[in-house]
């Protein structure tokens, strides 16, 4: 039997970025808040000290920073006619685990979506007509505008101490920044990081082709910084172990380095670690969440009543817990009806290697979001007429640290092993760099999440099943972006380039991005969205679902900035409106 615990005002399920943001906001409003995290307590300078954090084998290849798949994973297939098999080891995306979640091993790439990204359906229909959005492309508007989110993007950027250069201040284009971005109220809190040789060469080549290069906005500190909560971060030392690793130097923003030193001191906040929520409990009429049931690592089961339930785990866990709890109508791809599992999306990436003979680039000097970007081909920043696709992505040269197990770029025709491989790698390692493209994935009727009928986790619960493939729209878009990247690569003046298109079906093996989205999306119609614009469940008004779970489709930017902005937007609505009339919907359907 579960032990019934005293009720709390709010319970949070999962304690990464969104959990920490919501906990900070709700405790400020005076609520008694409990966060349940299934992983371990992690404190960055202790657990990832700069004396041993630069360990490629341990943290990346042996997955010590990531979710243990022996506990739970998901099953995968490209289309519904195939039998899904379990993702037995990590590859295409790197799920987090423990306090701080995947925000401990992220790069620190902080973007805002374009104003048009947030109304992808209406914008594309208006500009390109009905044929631009085929029937099986199930894209929707977010239900919030860029103007709605601007103050919350700003709040997150200042929380994190983002290093960057504004390109649009209150509608006035700024030299050196991104001229395509939406207007921002003020400059970034910190100046850009120092730019190494390779991204500088990329910027020069891109500018020569008429593109608009600018420094990537980075939650890696270009100088010491004190954030609005009074938490201090230190200058980044460009050690090159940021992307896919943890920073013990207080130089990369994470929940631990921006919020927790304040939150963890509060008497009205409690964190329980190694406590896994297995179910959200509902009242008999199914219209109220009464709390959650969780188990600790000794197998003890607890029932935790709460007035407000916030689902703040990673998107795949959020969707699975809704399905396991029987909340919301599961999506059925045959009829297109149902909302839980609907509009799963991802991103599509490709790259171009540039090989020099005469330029030492020292690619191991790096930081997670250090690089030069062009957004000329992102979103709807360019005319798509006649191209046969919508959406786009950024093209950039990021120097994140060329860890030597992972970074074996060799020219076309070189084998993957043996004397010829070895000679090419030894010749080229210091003189090779890589341009990457980071493209949007639209939502499609056949891409969705549900529960697997066969495979179970360590607790005997069904695994989540992912049915996903890139469609024609994504391949055309990615090929177009890759060709634009190759143009810049050639203009950089190296000995040769190698173009790595993303061909064929989505493959779980090679790392691509940990930018999974959708499955319980936001919108303005309960028939096609799980939450309203405040991430509040239509069916269960005291349940809020945070994270990229809410994205109706993905954009060509890293998601964390928008994930955080949506969490702050929801928190503000809870504080200013919901708490005055609890259990009521903030939007009338």
């Amino acid at each position, binding site marked *: 039997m579960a032990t019934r615990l005293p009720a709390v005002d709010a319970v949070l399920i999962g304690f990464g970025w969104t959990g920490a943001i919501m906990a900070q906001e709700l405790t400020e409003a005076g609520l008694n808040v409990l966060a349940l995290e299934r992983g371990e307590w992690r404190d960055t300078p202790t657990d990832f000290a700069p004396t041993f954090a630069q360990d490629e*084998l341990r943290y990346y290849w042996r997955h010590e920073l990531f979710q243990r798949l022996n506990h739970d994973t998901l099953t995968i297939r490209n289309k519904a006619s195939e039998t899904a098999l379990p993702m037995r080891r990590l590859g295409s995306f790197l799920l987090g685990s423990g306090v701080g979640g995947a925000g401990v091993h992220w790069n620190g790439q902080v973007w805002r979506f374009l104003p048009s990204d947030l109304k992808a359906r209406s914008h594309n229909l208006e500009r390109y007509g009905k044929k631009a959005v085929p029937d099986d492309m199930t894209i929707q508007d977010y239900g919030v505008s860029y103007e709605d989110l601007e103050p919350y993007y700003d709040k997150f950027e200042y929380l994190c101490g983002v290093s960057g250069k504004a390109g649009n201040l209150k509608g006035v284009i700024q030299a050196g920044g991104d001229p395509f971005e939406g207007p921002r109220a003020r400059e970034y809190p910190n100046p850009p990081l120092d730019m190494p040789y390779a991204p*500088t060469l990329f910027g020069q080549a891109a500018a020569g082709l008429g593109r608009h290069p600018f420094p990537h906005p980075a939650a890696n500190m270009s100088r010491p910084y004190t954030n609005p909560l009074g938490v201090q971060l230190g200058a980044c030392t460009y050690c090159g172990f940021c992307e896919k690793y943890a920073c013990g130097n207080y130089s990369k923003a994470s929940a631990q380095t921006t919020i927790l030193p304040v939150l963890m001191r509060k008497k009205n906040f409690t964190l329980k670690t190694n406590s896994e929520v*297995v179910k959200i409990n509902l009242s008999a009429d199914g219209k109220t969440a009464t709390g959650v049931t969780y188990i600790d690592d000794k197998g003890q089961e607890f029932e935790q009543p709460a007035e407000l339930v916030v689902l703040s785990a990673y998107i795949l866990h959020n969707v699975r817990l809704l399905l396991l709890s029987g909340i919301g109508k599961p999506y059925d791809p045959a009829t297109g009806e149902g909302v839980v599992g609907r509009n799963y999306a991802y991103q599509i990436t490709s790259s171009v290697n540039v090989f020099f003979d005469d330029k030492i680039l020292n690619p191991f000097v790096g930081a997670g979001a250090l690089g030069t970007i062009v957004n000329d081909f992102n979103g709807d920043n360019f005319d798509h007429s006649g191209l046969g696709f919508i959406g786009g992505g950024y093209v950039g040269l990021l120097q994140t640290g060329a860890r030597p197990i992972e970074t074996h770029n060799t020219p076309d025709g070189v084998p993957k092993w043996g004397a010829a491989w070895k000679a090419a790698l030894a010749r080229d390692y210091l003189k090779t760099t890589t341009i990457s493209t980071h493209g949007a994935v639209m939502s499609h009727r056949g891409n969705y999440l549900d529960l697997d009928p066969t495979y179970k986790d360590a607790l005997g619960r069904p695994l989540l099943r992912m049915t996903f493939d890139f469609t024609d729209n994504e391949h055309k878009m990615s090929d177009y972006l890759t060709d634009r990247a190759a143009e810049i690569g050639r203009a950089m003046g190296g000995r040769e380039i190698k173009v790595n298109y993303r061909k064929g079906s989505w493959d779980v093996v090679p790392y691509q991005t940990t930018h999974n989205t959708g499955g319980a999306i936001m919108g303005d119609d309960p028939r096609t969205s799980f939450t309203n614009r405040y991430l509040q469940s239509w069916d269960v008004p005291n349940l809020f679902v945070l994270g990229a779970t809410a994205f109706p489709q993905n954009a060509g930017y890293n998601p964390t900035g928008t994930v955080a902005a949506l969490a702050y937007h929801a928190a503000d609505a809870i504080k200013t409106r919901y708490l005055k009339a609890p259990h009521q919907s903030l939007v009338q359907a």
Partner: protein
Amino acid sequence: MSTFELDRRALLGIGAAACAVPLTAAAAQFTGAGMAWQPNTAAWPTAVDLRAGYMFFTPDEAAFIEAACARIVPADATGPGAVEAGVPLFLDRQLAGDYGKGARWYMQGPFGKSTGTQGYQSRHPPAGLYRAAIRAIGDHLGRNGGQPFHKLSAADQDAFLKDLEAGKADLGGDVDAKAYFTLLLQNVMEGYFADPLYGGNRGLAAWKMIGFSGARYDQRAYVLAYGKPYPLPPVGIGGRPAWSAKG
């Protein structure tokens, strides 16, 4: 309405597993405590002890592994080979430990055949796959009247490895030749380029060969040094050979 029932035996299993993990990994409750720091809880890496020789590989398996390593990364004027860098012992210790058991992988059945995009689907964790594959390779070569792999000429060894890589060698049973070669190649590269703590990359030789700086803390002085060679030799988490009196 409950849509599933927790597996009670699985819950007990979680409790048993928890006994083996350190203090900070146990369920804990924090209220108003600040950042909950405790002394001596840092999770230092553990250097492998190589003195005992092979712990996982049998002599026959070691003969195959040493020969395959010597072809995947041969010793030549460019730099040391995988054997000289210690990769066979690296592989041995990896396979003898949690990695070999697939401790963090999902290894529950049923086992199906991958469509080609579903990744690793062998019923064997890495250690079991090595064992089964090396046996199957020996049988395969023997069936065709040939010598064991380690007695073939270098050219014949390369040709056979290329057949494995391309999935052309039919090893029979439940061993997918291509899946095994993919794993072997990945593990050899891991050993060759990982920190020397784990037994490979002996003397930091692989990092010296390509010019990687190593486990550095502060590289700020080199960000804007465009085109200039990095002036320092590589360093590992445990330092570098010159720091030790024994070299």
